[in-house]
């Protein structure tokens, strides 16, 4: 016995009859939902990243050797490892500059080809006695101080089952893995000055995967400075520059402002691109449904003769558009999920902006929103044609179709 012939089946058969047109319309909705979902996830991820950067940059100023301003920014933003040093005596010279509330030195090491990591790793040594930049996060994560000999690792560092990481042939216990920041700090390893000395010695002994020959007893890489309340940053920079030569000062506010500017432009591009895609898809679908409805006047007139109500005729066209948009919406979102989540590191490296993916509940909200827009676009685009079809006088449309 043949199957019952519902109007849903009839709509499906109509779509099946014109495979090329159906696939083209589905692809338009696939592209729309892909752009909307990816764009929204990218936008939220970049905003999350910026908020984290603002929260995590504890210092107002970072003093580095002349010529290493860019390298310092890369360490902070993208985790691109770098080593540069100046004499430790610089710290003593600038510490009395007027307007400094706190200052602390850091020592940088880089590695190559360690088991933990696909890419070179930045090791940042800090002085627990004076640090004000890293330890607040550590306290937040482990609730206390880090012991000498242990490491704190960024969220992108693989630490294995033993909660340890091997550098220069030695396993170092990992005290904590920090939450994702969306910055280069996620690909960095943090250690106290004492641990850095041990790492440095081992690296020297092994003579491998070590890019610097500086001495942590006599050298430092950067000095982080917190400006005292009430002092203008420009004035403090001027005061510091007077105390020592061969130094350059990075303003973290400038880094944040740079990110904000880049993010703002990119975000605007994403929104405009998504909006343009939405309008374009709506126009394409409206035109195609209008042409299709016109082509099918005779078919609708026949159904009317056979006893279909005006509502049923409109329902056929709306149902067809709904099938197209549901299929396109689901495929588009599935593709963007497959693209945006597995390739988040690639996207982050390509954009060179701090990037933190939204939480699962927020992703679900974005997904639902995208699906609603994608599903709604078909019926919206076909609404006018459906109304027109249901208003037409049957006999006339049947004769017109000849």
């Amino acid at each position, binding site marked *: *016995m*043949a199957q*019952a*012939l*519902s*109007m849903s089946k*009839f709509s499906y*058969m*109509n779509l*099946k*009859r014109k495979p090329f047109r159906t696939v083209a319309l589905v692809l338009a909705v696939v592209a729309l939902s892909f752009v909307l979902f990816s764009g929204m996830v990218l936008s939220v991820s970049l905003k999350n990243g910026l908020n984290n950067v603002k929260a995590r940059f504890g210092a107002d100023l970072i003093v580095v050797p002349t010529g290493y301003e860019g390298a310092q920014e890369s360490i902070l933003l993208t985790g691109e490892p770098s080593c540069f040093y100046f004499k430790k005596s610089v710290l003593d010279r600038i510490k009395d500059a007027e307007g400094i509330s706190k200052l602390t030195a850091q020592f940088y090491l880089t590695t190559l080809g360690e088991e933990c990591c696909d890419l070179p790793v930045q090791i940042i040594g800090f002085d627990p006695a004076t640090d004000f930049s890293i330890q607040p996060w550590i306290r937040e994560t482990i609730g206390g101080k880090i012991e000498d000999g242990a490491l704190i690792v960024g969220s992108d560092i693989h630490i294995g089952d033993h909660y340890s990481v091997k550098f220069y042939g030695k396993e170092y216990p990992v005290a904590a893995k920090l939450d994702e920041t969306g910055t280069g700090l996620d690909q960095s390893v943090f250690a106290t000055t004492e641990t850095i000395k041990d790492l440095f010695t081992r690296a020297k002994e092994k003579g491998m995967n070590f890019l610097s020959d500086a001495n942590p007893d006599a050298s430092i890489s950067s000095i982080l400075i917190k400006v005292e309340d009430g002092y203008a940053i420009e004035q403090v920079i001027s005061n510091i520059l007077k105390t020592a030569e061969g130094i350059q000062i990075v303003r973290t506010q400038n880094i944040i402002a740079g990110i904000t500017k880049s993010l703002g432009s990119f975000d605007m591009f994403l929104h405009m691109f998504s909006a343009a895609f939405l309008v374009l898809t709506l126009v394409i679908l409206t035109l195609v449904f209008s042409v299709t409805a016109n082509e099918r006047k*005779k*078919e609708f*007139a*026949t*159904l*009317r*003769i*056979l*006893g*279909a*109500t*005006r*509502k*049923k005729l409109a329902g056929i066209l709306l149902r067809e558009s709904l099938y197209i948009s549901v299929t396109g919406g689901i495929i588009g979102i599935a593709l963007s999920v497959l693209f945006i989540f597995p390739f988040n590191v690639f996207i982050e490296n390509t954009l060179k902006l701090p990037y933190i993916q939204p939480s699962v509940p927020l992703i679900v909200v974005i997904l639902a929103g995208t699906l609603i827009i994608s599903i709604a676009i078909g019926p919206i685009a076909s609404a006018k044609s459906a109304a027109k079809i249901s208003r037409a*006088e*049957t*006999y*006339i449309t*049947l*004769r017109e*179709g*000849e």
Partner: protein
Amino acid sequence: MLLEVKGLDRKYRQSNKPFYAVRDVNLQMNEGDHFTIVGRSGSGKSTLLNLIAGLLTPTAGEIRIDGKNMLSLNDNEASLLRNSTIGYIPQEQSMLSCLTVLDNVRIPYFLWRREGDATERALQLLEGLGIAHLANAYPHHLSGGELRRVSIARALINNPKLLLADEPTNDLDIKTTDHIMRLFAEIAKSGTAVLLVTHDLDAIGYGNGVYRMDDGKLSQQSIPGIYASDI
């Protein structure tokens, strides 16, 4: 009374002047009646049929089918009446190209909620019209005569009380015309009122009443009064 048409008008405007496609038409049909309307092209035959089927709205007059005033029905009621009480065979090719012949015949059954399945009846109708072997074919594979027979089967699927046929023997050879007209006569004998319009002289003489349409006006005729030169 199955069909009662009173003072039916359909007025259009041509070059800003009123033009009556149908003017003051009166017609009555009972169950089992088999009437044929003849007339020249443009005389208003098809317009009258479409007015009776509720596919066009008259500018004046009244149409009652099975006791219901067509003009007072809302879209749902009129559509249901068209689906369950009227079988309509349009002059134009009107198959749904995405459906097989069998599904084309079955579709009126599924437009409104009904119990059971129409497959067996659809196959019987196709068998009776000699095209059961085409049940799974698509309309674009069928000849003009075969398509005409499919639309007859489709019009009969819901056992209508009134069958309206607009030039049902158009493009058919004499043998097929005879076969189809005999079928209409059998349908009328079974109690369904059959009203068909045609300009095919071979199609006249199978029913129990002939009408002539001239410039929108309907008049009853005796068969010898119809001449090929008139139509």
